[in-house]
């Protein structure tokens, strides 16, 4: 028996008031995958995820959630969804909030409260159990929201910008939670515009820009799209001239060294061999590991870069 993929999206498009939000997007999520759904604000990530859940109907294309139509009875209770815009009932306590969502997802009353208590203890929120949501700090409330979304231990996690609004300590806690969920063999797709999280957590990346999918592949494949950078330094005046055949860009640094972006066919090993051959005395030789941020900029072009940086600044602020 073949296991139905949790989500498959085929040629899906959606426009709001004539403005295209998602255009001809296709991808399939396989069981057990951790997918980073990346892109700047307005890339179409949230709209795609909402369509995947059946909250919005696509204008064209087809979506299958657990092999059926989104919003079908068969998918309820199997999904843990954390939306980008989230909140809690102000007058409920933390355990009531978690238990309520768990019960809506099919758990029995006592079991739901038991799991709520266990989760709150596990994630350091024991003292918040009987605290009203309105009296909790923002960080605590965000943790409770996440626990409410996942308390029923679903098969498929859809997390829309789960890291946004969390402080660095809680971002690490959330990363640990995601790893723990993945270890249980669950499927996860999470959207973010902070590439570092995706780099650390995902085995597959889907990049969105301007409503279109611009990349879909392994994290290594995505990183290979990034320009290879390195810093090289020497007292020898010939260094700049010597690097020209290897680099598309050579920018002198304040400390006298050079920032290089290597050509597609060049690699740092060849640069080093050439320097040894020419008897250049190197003071610095630092190949820089590629980042998803650089890969994204390389794939979507410079126009998107500024927007992306603004978005990242917003997240880090």
């Amino acid at each position, binding site marked *: 028996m073949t296991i139905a993929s949790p989500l498959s999206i085929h040629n899906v498009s959606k426009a*709001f*008031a004539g403005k295209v939000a998602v255009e001809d997007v296709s991808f399939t999520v396989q069981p057990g995958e951790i997918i980073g759904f990346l892109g700047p604000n307005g890339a179409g990530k949230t709209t795609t995820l*909402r369509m995947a*859940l059946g*909250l*919005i109907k696509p204008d064209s294309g087809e979506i299958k959630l657990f092999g059926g139509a989104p*919003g079908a*009875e068969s998918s*309820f*209770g199997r*999904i*843990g*969804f*954390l*939306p980008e*815009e*989230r*909140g*809690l*009932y*102000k*007058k*409920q306590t933390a355990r009531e909030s978690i238990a*309520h*969502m768990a*019960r*809506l*997802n099919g758990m029995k009353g006592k079991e739901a409260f038991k799991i709520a208590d266990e989760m709150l203890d596990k994630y350091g929120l024991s003292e918040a159990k009987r605290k009203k949501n309105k009296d909790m700090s923002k960080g605590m409330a965000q943790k409770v*929201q996440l626990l*409410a*979304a996942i308390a029923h231990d679903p098969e498929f996690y*859809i997390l829309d910008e789960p890291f946004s609004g969390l402080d660095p300590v809680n971002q690490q806690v959330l990363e640990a939670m995601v790893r723990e969920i993945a270890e249980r063999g669950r499927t996860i797709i999470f959207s973010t515009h902070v590439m570092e999280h995706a780099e650390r957590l995902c085995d597959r990346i889907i990049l969105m820009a301007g409503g279109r999918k611009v990349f879909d592949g392994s994290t290594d494949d995505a990183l290979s799209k990034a320009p290879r950078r390195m810093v090289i330094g020497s007292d020898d005046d010939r260094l700049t001239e010597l690097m020209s055949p290897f680099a598309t860009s050579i920018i002198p640094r304040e400390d006298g060294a050079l920032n290089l972006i290597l050509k597609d066919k060049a690699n740092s090993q060849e640069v080093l061999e050439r320097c040894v051959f020419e008897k250049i005395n190197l003071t610095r030789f630092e190949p820089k590991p590629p980042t998803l941020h650089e890969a994204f900029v390389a794939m979507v072009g410079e126009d998107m870069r500024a927007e992306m940086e603004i978005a990242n600044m917003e997240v880090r602020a």
Partner: protein
Amino acid sequence: MRLPAINMRRTYLIARRDYLGYVKTWGFWLSFFMPFIFGILGFFASSWDFKVSPTRYETVLDETGLHKAAIIQLDADNKREIAEEVMSTLGKTLLPETQAKEFEMLVAEKGAQAGQDYLEAKIPGAGERLKIPDSNMIFIEPPSNDLDELKAYMREDKMATYQGEEVKLNGVIHIYEDEGIKADYWSPNFNNPEAERLAKGYFRSLAMDGYLAGGNLSREGLDAARKGAVTINTFDPTKTNVKEGGSQKVTMTDRVPFIAAAILSGMLWLTVFSGAYMLLTSMLEEKMNKLLEMMLASTRFTEIIFGKLLGVAALTITAMLPYIIIGIGAVIGFILFGDPEIAEGLKNTFTLKMIVFFIIFLILGYIFYGAFFIALGSVAESMQDAQTLTTPIMLVLTACIMVVPLGMNSPDSPILTFASWFPLSAPFAAIVRLPSDPPLWELCLSALFLGILSIGVIILAERIFRFGVLSGAGVKGVTDWFKRKILRRKTN
């Protein structure tokens, strides 16, 4: 058309949360116990001789010396009549039929105080609890015979005396000669016209006596003639429930069902109004709490709508429970101990047909308006938005209650018939028409029509809900849609 699927467990859980969300607030319980709190306060107020307004001390400055005593006597007569009427009503309400007649004769012969003593003898404690209300207006001797000096008393520059205590003079009826008799009323408390009205009544009566005397006629003769006038009885040719030896004469028994139906219709309106408004605020709260999107991954739109309708319905019933209990208690009390004509009328009111259709229209009216308000709540983004959006519906709801008096005065009015078909007013109009016994098929068809429209409104509400909650659309979204689709204008 495919009807929306619903999972009952999830619907119940949403209803339960909404219900408990309100029931756990202290404001809810304050409202719930309000009738009892007022009852207790009323009980103690009667014991403590609490008065809503202070006693007003009035005086008559009669420069003619002809009218003062008569005005004071008229005031005393009026107070006696009111006291006797109050006592008589109390007797009818509290005493069995045989004792009530005896009581009425006693009050007519010996006055209200005798009635109060009788009540105390028959129902110990009642005489003390239900005593004749003291008058708030007392006439005192003028502290001065000079109007200018009396003005100083009214300004509280000086104090008058009554039974050895200093009191403030509230007003002066000044009667004087100036090419005939003239009378003025002086008072800083000029919005309270009781003394002025008394003086007017006295002089009007005096004028009539003068006129009658001109023709050698007397007031007593006029009163006797009035008593002997032909009385008009009202008969209803369609009346069929005539008792043996009775006639088709219209009695209180025939009028009570119309009054009761009007009250029920008003209650229905109040329930729909308060329930629907609660739904609107509940929806708005959900939107502001930003929880809907997360819930929508676990439930359907329709389950949220029905859950909310169910939760708020249970809440409304709980909130109204004290009034329902008091109402049912009052009806049973009237049937068992009240005036037989009214009791009979009440029995005729609460027929199976009335109860069944009241429940049907209560449910349909609530669903119809409730779904509408949920839809409005989902496009509103703030209380200001909600108020702007609901004002037209509130006006329609208010206009709908206008059919209630029509039901009492003109049950055959074509407006009322139309209103019972028109979905916005159907729940209220159909109830007030019930005592005039409209054909059953009309009621069934009206209910069916409203039921179909209610389903339509739920489907529409679901769409608006989807649009309002998830497309980031608020009031601006609606106006933009209107500009784009209707006015064919470009929007930003």
